[in-house]
């Protein structure tokens, strides 16, 4: 089914390339009108998104430190060399990737369980969904402060559960674990909501048919529900991966990057806003942007995540 849909999309494109099918005048003016309607949105996006990105790229080729502004000059790729040969960058990238992969994986499992539970809830469905969403509605900084308090020895209720003298926020491994826990606690509801929307794609009659054919709950989950939910799962994973990769506020409050827990966003912030080195800081931002773009590309091209609205297009062309 997937295959036919794809060839259905490709066929007219290649045909147009070879033969130049004449486009009727009515369609052309319709296109012009559509472009005109899009223009304001495109303009706004250019101003608020494309310009800053372009300016960051421009700055990333310069030696530009606010305190030594007389030294401002173009240095080619020197900033990229400095960042990519610095162990600070690689350490931050490793920590960020670990946080991203582990937290998104845990969120997916718990989020799926929550979504299945919410889907089945018969009584108080609205209440259950609201309760599940509470962590997501709490401001990240506030949540991070409460985690910090909870894990501080002699003060927090969670630290009190640990042997005396253990301070989990003071060691790299345990601090990263605390950061991941804070992330998971906070964003699992978001994951659950996205997956719940995906569960709506699974028709009840299909599940009942599978049940009659003798499929147990696990079999139904792995062979019916998950394959049908795949588009929703991939979209949820993409959103959360991109989000988790830019993690900043939790770490900023919990450890300030102490003990090797800084993320790439922390590194960029410190270089931009603490030492005012616009060149290096912009380079880090551009590199973060590139990593995010690669992740999005991999998701879209390799796993075939559909862009919003793409399905509607396919259906129309079929």
């Amino acid at each position: 089914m997937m295959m036919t849909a794809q060839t259905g999309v490709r066929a007219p494109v290649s045909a147009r390339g070879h033969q130049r099918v004449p486009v009727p005048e009515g369609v052309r003016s319709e296109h012009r009108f559509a472009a005109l309607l899009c223009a304001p949105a495109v303009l706004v996006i250019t101003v608020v998104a494309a310009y800053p990105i372009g300016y960051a790229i421009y700055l990333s080729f310069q030696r530009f430190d606010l305190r030594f502004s007389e030294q401002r000059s173009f240095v080619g790729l020197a900033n990229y060399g400095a960042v990519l040969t610095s162990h600070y960058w690689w350490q931050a990238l490793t920590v960020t990737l670990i946080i991203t992969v582990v937290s998104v994986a845990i969120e997916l499992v718990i989020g799926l369980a929550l979504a299945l539970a919410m889907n089945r809830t018969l009584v108080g469905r609205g209440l259950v969904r609201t309760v599940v969403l509470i962590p997501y509605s709490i401001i990240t900084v506030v949540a991070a402060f409460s985690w910090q308090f909870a894990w501080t020895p002699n003060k927090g209720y969670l630290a009190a559960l640990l042997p005396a003298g253990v301070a989990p926020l003071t060691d790299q491994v345990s601090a990263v674990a605390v950061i991941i826990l804070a992330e998971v606690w906070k964003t699992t509801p978001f994951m659950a909501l996205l997956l719940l929307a995906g569960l709506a794609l699974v028709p009840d009659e299909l599940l009942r048919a599978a049940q009659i054919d003798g499929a147990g709950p696990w079999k139904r989950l792995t062979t019916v529900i998950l394959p049908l939910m795949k588009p929703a799962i991939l979209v949820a994973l993409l959103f959360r991966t991109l989000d988790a990769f830019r993690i900043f506020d939790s770490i900023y409050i919990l450890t300030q990057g102490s003990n090797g827990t800084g993320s790439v966003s922390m590194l960029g912030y410190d270089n931009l806003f603490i030492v005012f080195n616009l060149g290096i800081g912009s380079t880090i931002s551009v590199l973060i942007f590139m990593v995010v773009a690669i992740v999005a590309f991999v998701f879209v091209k390799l796993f075939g995540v559909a862009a919003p609205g793409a399905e509607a297009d396919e259906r129309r062309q079929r």
Partner: protein
Amino acid sequence: MHCGEASGWRVVAAAVGLLLVAATLTGCGSGDSGRVVLHSYSPVDGADQYAAAAAACSRASGGRYTIQMRTGRRSTDDQRLQLARRLVANDSDLDIMLLDVIWTAEFAQAGWILPYPADLARHVEQETLQGPYETGTYQGRLYAAPLNTNTQLLWYRTDLVPNPPRTWDEMIQMAEDLAARGLPHYIEVQGAQFEGLTVWFNTLVTTAGGSILSENGEVEVAHGDAARRAMEVMARVATSPAADPSLSVAKETDARLAMEAGLAAFQVNYPAVHASVNTPGPDGGGGTFIDPLGRPTIQDTGRRVRDVFGWTAYPSVMSGKPATVTVGGLNLGVSTTSQHPAEAFEAVQCLRNRENQLRNAIDAGMPPTLRELYDDPAFQREYPAWQAIRDSLAAASVRPKTPAYQNVSIVISDLLNPPAEINPDTMLGQLTDGIAEAVKSEGLVP
């Protein structure tokens, strides 16, 4: 339809016009009566006192200027970022700045603050304590006049420690003895990865006779054995049972809270802890009850932490030579974007006059910078720790003077955190290389 369009445009035009008018009104530097309005941003701590000083000076100016003191950010880094943003954007509504001592070289080098006129600079030098005065100078010129100063003392529990230690070694020994007896024993010091850790290191290095940078900004940290001795002290504190388990994330506030909760025997901290510990309940800092042995208890024993709270000079690295404690505090600078520098320099002198420094000291606990105040019996009565503070300031050391101080500080605090993992043998070379790169603000900071 045509008519509707036209009226729509008229509304837009009117709105734009209103916005423009509003912008001109609020952006105007002078008030209605020709009075110059001087804009300033104070930190949150002590904001009430700074506002009171601004009001008093506005009244005393005889109608020439009004100082509008706005409250800025709580954290030093955020405050600096806010000022820098305004300066880079050429904000002409920024005249007087309250500058942390560590920003002088940076703001001067960036061309953000004006040097003081020579005669005014001489006057400031005469009436100000030497250590604090030094913090306001860069390349031989005064860029920021000291408003208040800050220096760390050793605060300790008089019931647990009858004779306060004079050196770090003595203090660690005492704390370990207390730990062995099961009594409160923590040594509280700033071990988190932040500027406070650099201050700890700078104090120890200068006390041991060394320096991080020379007067000309050359890296000197590896000269002699001062840096090695400093690192040995830090590692010893951190690995001894005397250390708070949270040492590697501990800042000044954590030290104060641990002491007020009755858990610590020692803390190295600023004089504001004295005001805090004596704040009456229920938020009162030193209200924790202690049992006859000195342990914190929830029972009303009639004895509280604040009753056994003493202070003495900062511990030294070697006996017989007092510690050279790193000076802190706030200085007053005049922005290069100011349109009224003459009035601003005049207002600065008022803001740091005797009356305003006295209020700042008594109400906010910030040590003054005027020499004469320390000899004033009225001040001495109101400010019990004055003698220890003056002695500490007399021997004070200044932080490395470089526009790239933030870079240097970040490199140092990154390398020396966590303090328990300091290895003097391998880290001296890393420190030297890292600081040399940081001074030029090249490469990344962690």
